[in-house]
């Protein structure tokens, strides 16, 4: 399960990067240089770094690399794979030392500091025309506010339904066959559940984060992406509702501090009844909580906006690459429709290429639970968007959680807590 927590110390890393990244001229510069299209034959030797995919998908990637090398005589790809933990630190150290791999796996928040420091290619400039292959939403996911350009090729996407524990619904006298479909229903049923079990079973495991506020209808930032605005009416209303839930025991006490992983574990232990997840989580339940798996209900994500959230992974090309043409060609090859679709058959993720989701694999159920989740999630992707602004790093995520915790405990009003969170996030934004 990839989690925000795995990007530990990202803030520190980003600070180190901005401090040292710009000043250091990496050896072997000259390659891509500044601006201008990158073209030429793909016949160089490059390195390709993925994020924690080797242990399970080694055969898949070895196959993709071999195919690329066959199609492009002379090209050589050395594959590196980094473990989950400490990835942001590794990237920033590599960027500072000029050892960033030529093609590197990034998420939008990871590419942001790299783009700011000029360490990755602006693909709109370097490869005009490349954008056409991907869905517009995914391509936009790798833009950085305040800068023109797109800094990574969109790769795989993730979204998922909400999982709920049917047994806990039944125990609380709720109908497991008609789970809540609106926020009002969710909150009402959460209160009912808390009352029926005398506070023993909580519906929810996490206080609202930036994604939840977005789904509820709050605007995270202003139009130009220069100030945070999630203390608007919708945001405040959501936190007020959560405060009621918290007081009634419909939100586990641990929720004040816990992240997505913690809530996921509590869902698997049967402490909470409702958990938004990713399509691949079904496999997690089967592995780690077989009893829950038999009981798990699957339903659609609740939104006030009609648009679900999607997580995005991408491939950036190092601006210091000595073989930018090979690197860009390889990144395009890995993220092309055929290879993305093939990867989606390996694990429950979704391609970001145009038209890929029309494949029957994503539109027709095959009778399995996985098939059902896959089709539902793919349908949801049509309109999905990323609610996390790329500048919203780990540090901001934590301080938002802390401020909301104060609101839950009644130390601050919801309005005050969100105002303070917005002020502190804006201050961090200005520091860069």
């Amino acid at each position: 399960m990839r989690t925000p927590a795995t990007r530990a110390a990202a803030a520190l890393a980003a600070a180190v990067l901005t401090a040292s990244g710009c000043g250091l001229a990496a050896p072997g510069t000259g390659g891509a240089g500044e601006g201008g299209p990158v073209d030429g034959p793909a016949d160089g030797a490059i390195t390709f770094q993925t994020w924690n995919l080797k242990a399970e998908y080694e055969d898949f990637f070895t196959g993709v690399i071999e195919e690329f090398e066959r199609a492009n005589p002379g090209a050589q790809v050395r594959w590196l794979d980094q473990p989950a933990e400490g990835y942001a630190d590794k990237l920033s150290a590599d960027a500072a030392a000029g050892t960033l791999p030529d093609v590197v796996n990034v998420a939008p928040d990871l590419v942001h500091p790299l783009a700011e420091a000029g360490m990755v290619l602006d693909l709109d400039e370097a490869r005009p025309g490349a954008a056409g292959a991907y869905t517009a939403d995914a391509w936009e996911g790798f833009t950085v506010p305040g800068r023109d350009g797109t800094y990574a090729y969109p790769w795989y996407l993730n979204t998922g339904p909400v999982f709920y524990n049917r047994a806990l619904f039944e125990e609380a006298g709720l109908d497991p066959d008609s789970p809540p479909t609106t926020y009002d229903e969710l909150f009402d049923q959460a209160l009912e559940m808390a009352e029926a079990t005398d506070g023993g079973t909580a519906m929810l495991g996490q206080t609202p984060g930036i994604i939840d506020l977005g789904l509820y209808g709050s605007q995270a930032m202003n139009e130009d992406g220069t100030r945070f605005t999630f203390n608007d009416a919708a945001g405040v209303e959501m936190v007020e509702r959560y405060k009621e839930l918290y007081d009634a025991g419909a939100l586990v006490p641990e929720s004040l501090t816990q992240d997505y992983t913690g809530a996921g574990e509590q869902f698997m232990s049967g402490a909470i009844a409702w958990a938004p997840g990713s399509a691949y989580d079904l496999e997690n339940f089967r592995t780690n909580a077989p009893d829950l798996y038999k009981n798990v209900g699957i339903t659609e994500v609740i939104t006030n906006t009609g648009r679900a959230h999607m997580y995005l992974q991408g491939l950036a090309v190092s601006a210091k690459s000595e073989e930018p043409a090979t690197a860009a060609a390889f990144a395009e090859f890995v993220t092309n429709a055929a290879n993305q679709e093939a990867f989606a058959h390996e694990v429950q993720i979704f391609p970001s290429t145009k038209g890929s989701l029309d494949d029957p694999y994503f539109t027709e159920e095959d009778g399995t639970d996985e098939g059902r989740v896959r089709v539902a999630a793919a349908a949801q992707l049509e309109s999905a968007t990323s609610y996390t602004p790329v500048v919203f790093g780990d540090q901001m995520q934590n301080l938002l959680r802390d401020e909301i915790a104060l609101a839950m405990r009644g130390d601050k009003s919801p309005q005050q807590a969100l105002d303070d969170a917005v002020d502190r996030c804006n201050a961090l934004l200005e520091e860069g």
Partner: protein
Amino acid sequence: MSRRTKTLLRYTLLLLIAAISIGPFLWQLSTALKGAGENIYSVPPSFLPAEPTGGNFTRVGEVLPVWGYVWNSVRVALATVVLNVVGASLAGYALARLRFRGRRAALSVFVLALLVPGEAVMVALFLMMRSVNLHDTLVAVVLPGMVGALNVLLMYNAFGAQPRELDEAAMIDGADAWQRFTRVALPSVKGTVAVVAIFAFMGAWDDFLWPLIVLSDPANYTLTVGLEYLRGTFVGDQRLIAAGTIIAVAPLIALFFSLQRYFFRGVNEGAVKG
């Protein structure tokens, strides 16, 4: 309070502390032994595996080249232990017993070094390793920790606690500094040497961030870094993670028990034997 209740209370407390410190480890062990059909997060937790299996340990070996990682870790840890024991005892003895210009300054450098958090200089260290072309080698993993400041201070204290007369007597007998160090001083601080050895081993064995940053090729990874692969990007099997942890901790436990004899001797060290 009667003597019996006192004893009872004492043992209850001891058991409680034992449960707190050993409990999590036993929990990890039990998770590692659980079969595929068992719930990992069940409430209340079940300590005894219902379908015990050793299969998770073999599966770790199938998913990862775990023995390669172990071999890398062993080399790094042993090199760190040898360098620390030799370096820290030499430096500690010099600071405690030899007279030379700048001794106080040298001592305060070691104390100050304790105050610098490793994370703060990590990027600088990485650039340094890169500039001498040692990045992505195990040598680079060992170098920054080859003589720990804390270990030097431990040895300094141990040597300093020996009566000066012992040293002076040896001097009168005509022993030079080297002889006094190897024949007189060192044999009586074995306990502290064991402490330094175990600290150095643990530090090297458990270190995560530095090896992660300095190493790029998965073939060079140490065990702590390599085991991270068990936490799958999409799906993680807690049984495998637990089995990996047990593999990682086992050598530490073995080392502790083999050095235990010396480990607890540190307390009454420095006493002159009659």
